[in-house]
């Protein structure tokens, strides 16, 4: 039997490796997990991968879209090597995330009410004027517990010195949590030995926590509020997640046409027993499609009158409409100030240093250093308009510079981060071995009567060598994230 190749992390290039760096520092759990993997023969690793893929496929049956269009079938490549984070570090990250989201909710609430932060000169009014996610219709609202963004998915990356940064906050309809839950189920089948020998904290609590968070928003004082998950329908790429979460929580999965708002400004769902009042809507459709009476009149996904019912306080929506105002890339740069302003605390989790092109000095710096930095337009998503300086051509830089000069407020820039790596299985058969690949992490933060952070989150991995892009559409996959407690391990 062939011996597994040694794992060669990219440490010498200035990258932090989530497993190898800690193992090399003598951390026992990381060392144990890495040694276990390195001791396996390539064929054995390949076999475990095959078994995991078979399990994904079998479980995928429940998720698989039953249609000819294979494109809407979401089989996301899964890597069997876990991404490990130690519990002690995770506790700090968790505290930082809770603090951050608490501040963001205070910010959203302020923005739609007194706008004290603007009056106090901490946050410039022009950012709001340029925001595409600010909703005038939400002014004056006071959602329960002062919380607007009940479900937040923050993307975290680790820099070369090991520091964890928040790259962005997704405050509208973040997705991916169902992969986190499913990945764990697959891993328990794939590497049961590791679960026996290490204390890996469970992630299964999420659906119950989500249910509790939603139930605590009910406008009616009832022991069993009527909660629904509102999906755009079966052709939405995240439909399986909508369906999965509804099933896990034991609540109804509805489409817009299943709901209606009656003359009493209450929301009802159409059932075979007649109309049934709805208290809480976990909506997985974007603001602008929620209510054709208020937003896009051509939307058939939403419910006419929904905003009316929400404004009347007869139904709760998670996330509240307008929450997206705080996940704008320009707002991002102000988050440390936002934390200090509302909580009077120092941020416990780092923001990536950000240059605002709206500021003439910062703008000049960015224009002089286009070859080194990453430039992002404030209000585009999905990488549109993005310039990665070190990988850019002169003509691309020229075009971006022109765009920045034309509308500096629409641009921000950040240093190029050396995303951390984690061992990932590559190659096949006898060549199957571990190689470093770049990863990020999306934990989910629930905020309602109480706050809850997933134990870890969804690790996304760029499966192509050297690639920094973790999106599933561009060669990305996912990994199970293990929060490991070395103190909880059996010393025997």
């Amino acid at each position, binding site marked *: 039997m062939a011996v597994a190749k040694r794992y060669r992390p990219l440490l010498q290039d200035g990258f932090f490796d989530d497993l190898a760096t800690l193992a090399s520092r003598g951390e026992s759990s990381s060392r144990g997990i890495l040694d276990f993997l390195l001791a396996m023969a390539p064929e054995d690793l390949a076999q475990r991968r095959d078994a995991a893929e078979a399990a994904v496929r079998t479980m995928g*049956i*429940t998720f698989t*879209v*039953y*249609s*000819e269009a294979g494109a809407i079938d979401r089989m996301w490549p899964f890597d069997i090597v876990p991404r490990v984070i130690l519990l002690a570090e995770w506790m700090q990250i968790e505290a930082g995330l809770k603090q951050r989201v608490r501040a963001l909710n205070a910010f959203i609430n302020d923005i739609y009410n007194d706008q004290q932060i603007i009056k106090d000169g901490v946050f410039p009014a022009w950012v709001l004027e340029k925001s595409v996610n600010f909703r005038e219709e939400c002014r004056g609202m006071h959602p329960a517990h002062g919380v607007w963004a009940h479900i937040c998915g923050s993307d975290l990356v680790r820099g070369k010195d090991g520091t964890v940064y928040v790259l962005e906050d997704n405050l509208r309809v973040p997705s991916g949590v169902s992969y986190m839950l499913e990945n764990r189920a697959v891993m328990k089948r794939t590497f049961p030995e590791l679960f026996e020998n290490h204390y890996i904290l469970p992630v299964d609590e999420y659906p119950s926590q989500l249910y509790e968070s939603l139930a605590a928003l009910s406008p009616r004082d009832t022991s*069993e509020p009527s909660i629904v998950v509102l999906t755009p329908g*079966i052709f939405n790429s995240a439909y399986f997640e909508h*369906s999965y979460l509804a*099933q896990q929580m*034991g609540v*109804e*999965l*509805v*489409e817009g*046409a*299943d709901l*209606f708002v*009656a*003359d*009493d400004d209450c929301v*009802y*769902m*159409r*059932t*075979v*027993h*007649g*109309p*049934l*009042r709805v208290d809480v809507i976990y909506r997985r459709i974007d603001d602008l499609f929620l209510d054709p009476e208020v937003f896009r009149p051509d939307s058939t996904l939403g419910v006419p009158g929904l905003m009316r019912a929400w404004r009347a306080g007869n139904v709760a929506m998670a996330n509240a409409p307008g929450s997206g105002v705080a996940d704008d890339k320009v707002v991002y740069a102000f988050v440390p100030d936002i934390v200090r302003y509302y909580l009077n605390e120092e941020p416990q989790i780092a923001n990536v240093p950000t240059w605002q092109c709206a500021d003439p000095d910062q703008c000049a710096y960015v224009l002089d250093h286009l070859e080194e930095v990453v430039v992002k337009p404030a209000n585009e998503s999905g990488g549109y308009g993005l310039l990665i300086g070190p990988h850019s051509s002169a003509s691309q830089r020229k075009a971006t510079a022109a765009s920045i000069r034309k509308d500096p407020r629409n641009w921000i820039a950040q240093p190029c981060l050396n995303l951390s790596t984690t061992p990932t299985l590559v190659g096949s058969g006898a060549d199957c071995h571990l190689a470093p690949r770049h990863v990020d992490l999306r934990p989910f933060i629930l905020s309602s009567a109480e706050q809850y952070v997933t134990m870890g989150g969804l690790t996304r991995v760029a499966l192509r060598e050297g690639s920094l892009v973790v999106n599933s559409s561009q060669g990305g996959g996912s990994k199970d994230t293990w929060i490991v407690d070395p103190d909880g391990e059996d010393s025997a």
Partner: protein
Amino acid sequence: MNAQLLSRVAEHFYWFGRYIERAENTARLIIANGNLALDLPGRARLDWYTLVETTSAQEAFASSGHNPTEPGVLRFLIADLNNPGSILSSLRYARENLRSMRDRVPREVAESMNVLYAVVSERSDGAIRRTSARFDLLRGVMDHCQIVRGYLAGTMSRGLGYRFIRSGQVLERADMTTRIMDVRVEDLLPDDHELPAVADALQWMAVLRSLSAYQMYRRHKPGAIKARHVIDFLLQDESFPRSVYSALSQFRDHAGQLPQPQDVLGAVDAALGDVSSLRAAVLSADNARLHTTLDQLQVTLLNVHAAMDRSYFDPQPMEMAATQTQKQSG
């Protein structure tokens, strides 16, 4: 809380049941026609286009561009996704309906549906070219649909979802039985062709076989096969599950378990009354009259469907709200 069922999901359950049954019965229909062709002397040419009329698909056929020949009609009925009534379309719709309810039906049902869909889409070409492959494929469709029904019967809780699936199935079955009864030699042969003497018995045997009714009929009526008895058996027998009367009785049993079923029960009772009042002796003597009667029965069944639609799938929201307000204030 758990007893609630969205109108939309209820409709998916119901149509899932209908499409499964439609796929199976379309297969039976083609088998019936094919068997008849084999039984006819001198390779008399059958008019396959009649099957298009039997399934009320003339318009779809006209726009499909197929020739009204055996291969054209077979392709249209088995594998043409532009024909909403083809076997493949029925299976596709069944699967699409299943998507919205798959956490509520046994997983094996979805798996069987996937296998069946793959089989039909992959093998339809061969089945259209070769008669032997055709029978295998169509029999496979029947078998798989029976497997699905078996899993539903054996492993699904008798909640509202189950009632809606079964209601859809048996209503579709009643409809398809009337259509399959209409597949007979008189229609299938060109007008000027002389009927062989044994044709009457042959054609009804083919119909019985295609409904898997031959053995049950034999136990019920030994001796020579008489049109009158077969018609009586297929329309009015109370114990054979594919007879129109029996399918409607089953529908009544399931619909009776649904919330506030008065409207639907009224419609199905009217249909049962119509079926009971038919006289097989009269119908067997007059083919044109049999044909018209079967058409009328199909209309009666449409009324039953319309009652389901009104009661559960597409109730008017404002009326619903009014009812709700009354309930709350009352």
